[in-house]
């Protein structure tokens, strides 16, 4: 599903954010990307999300070379990808239901179908009763659950989460992680960038470790945590 071959990303006037990274993530996998701040986790997600181009190397997404995707086709690639951010990125002036409906509106679904799916999604994250509230009136955990519902709204084949639990307390962290695991269990490939070691210990999943833009190791979480 995702293949990186010797990918390097450099920003002008800065050192390389990613250096010669080669990595493959298969369909249906659940992968933790970890490493200290500045390791290149977010940069890697941005490249996968077609938000920025790689400076060198090749990135294949869904079997297509990202560098060769026409700019006008990128939105359609993104419709197969759900994204969750640490800061939620919800629209404060739109209700919870309207936020979740965004990816469905983009896909030109009928209003009735949108309402049905939004109701279902909000029920799945336990927020059906908050549908008409505005995000600022919700707790951090609730906002992140809304963000997860939005990311999953269009049944993406790939879900990227950048520090999705960074702003949450332990209980809310578990709630959000359970939602991500649920999506993975239903077949969605999930890539979670985190520096929270407790998550790696709790969930025995594949862990890719980055440091200073280099891929340090790639293996299961038990080995990673005990070895580090």
């Amino acid at each position, binding site marked *: 599903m995702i293949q990186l071959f010797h990918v390097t990303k450099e920003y002008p006037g800065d050192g390389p954010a990613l250096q010669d990274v080669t990595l493959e993530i298969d369909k249906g996998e659940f992968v933790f990307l970890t490493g200290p701040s500045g390791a290149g986790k977010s940069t890697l997600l941005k490249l996968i999300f077609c938000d*920025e181009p790689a400076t060198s190397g090749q990135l294949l997404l869904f079997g297509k070379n990202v560098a060769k995707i026409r700019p*006008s086709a990128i939105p359609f690639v993104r419709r197969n990808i759900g994204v969750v951010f640490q800061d939620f990125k919800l629209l404060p002036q739109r209700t919870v239901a309207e936020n979740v409906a965004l990816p469905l509106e983009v896909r030109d679904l009928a209003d009735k179908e949108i309402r049905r799916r939004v109701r279902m999604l909000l029920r799945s994250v336990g927020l059906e009763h908050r549908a008409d509230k505005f995000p600022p009136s919700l707790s951090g955990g609730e906002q992140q659950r809304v963000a997860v519902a939005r990311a999953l709204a269009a049944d993406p084949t790939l879900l990227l989460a950048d520090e999705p639990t960074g702003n949450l307390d332990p209980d809310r962290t578990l709630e959000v992680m359970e939602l991500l695991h649920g999506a993975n269990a239903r077949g969605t490939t999930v890539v979670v960038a985190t520096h929270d070691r407790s998550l790696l210990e709790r969930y025995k999943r594949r862990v890719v470790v980055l440091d200073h833009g280099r891929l340090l190791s790639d293996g299961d979480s038990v080995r990673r945590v005990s070895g580090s």
Partner: protein
Amino acid sequence: MTAFRPVYFTRRALDAMLRGPYVAFVGTATIFVAVFATGLLAAALGGAERLLQGWAGEVQISVYLAPGADLEAAARASRALAPGRAVEAVPAATALRRLAETLGDEARVLEGVGPGALPDAVEVRAPGITLAGARELARVLRGVPGAAEVDYGNAWLEKLEAFVARAQVAAVVLFAALAVATAVLVSNTLRLAVFARRDEIEIMKLVGATSGFVSAPFLIEGVLQGLLGAGLAVLALLGLHALLVPRLQTAVALAGTLTLRDTLPLPLVLGLVLGGGSVGLLGSALSVARTLRRMHGT
């Protein structure tokens, strides 16, 4: 490809305007001022042109004769020089009587004034003639035997005609400059609206919205603000017409025939409203395209 969903995009545009009324107000106000200024200029020019035409409907050319000149011979010559026009020989005594009638109660100022105080004259009526035509006819009538002076109207009309001619040339340049300035101004104003909602644009892009999908509500918002601003400007111009024209009619007799069709004809009103909408669309398109270019992806 983004499916064009006018109802959905219009709903989003209206929603955005309601949620950000200040920015919508500034955009609408900018277009209001621009359309009002343009409309005022066009209405003033239209009114001035109508006044000139109105004068033409009443024009009378007077050929004043030198003392001792043959009035009948002058009248015959005038008929020959102005074929088809009504020509009247007015002896000095008749002219004095008419002047007394015109003065009414003030006629006593003419006490002691003899018939010789005014010259004999030939009056040529030329309804429907243009100012240029009147000027040419006056030049021809100067050839009447015994003619001392030819008068065809008031000097201010000459000045008005010259002003209108110059203003019409200036108006074309001014309209073009105003349209460009308004588009830039509106573009900058609407840029505020786009900038205020850059988070929304970013999130729309995150969930897979195409540039067309992101832009459409902004474009509709621009058109709505343009139509609203222009519509209000037209209403203000109508109000101004209702306020000023009656006062003008009491000050200038010729303005008595001035109607709404002269100052704000339907094509002008439609042009102003559609122009406002177009400027809103153009300004919005410029600002949203600029913002999207600056963002990552497309």
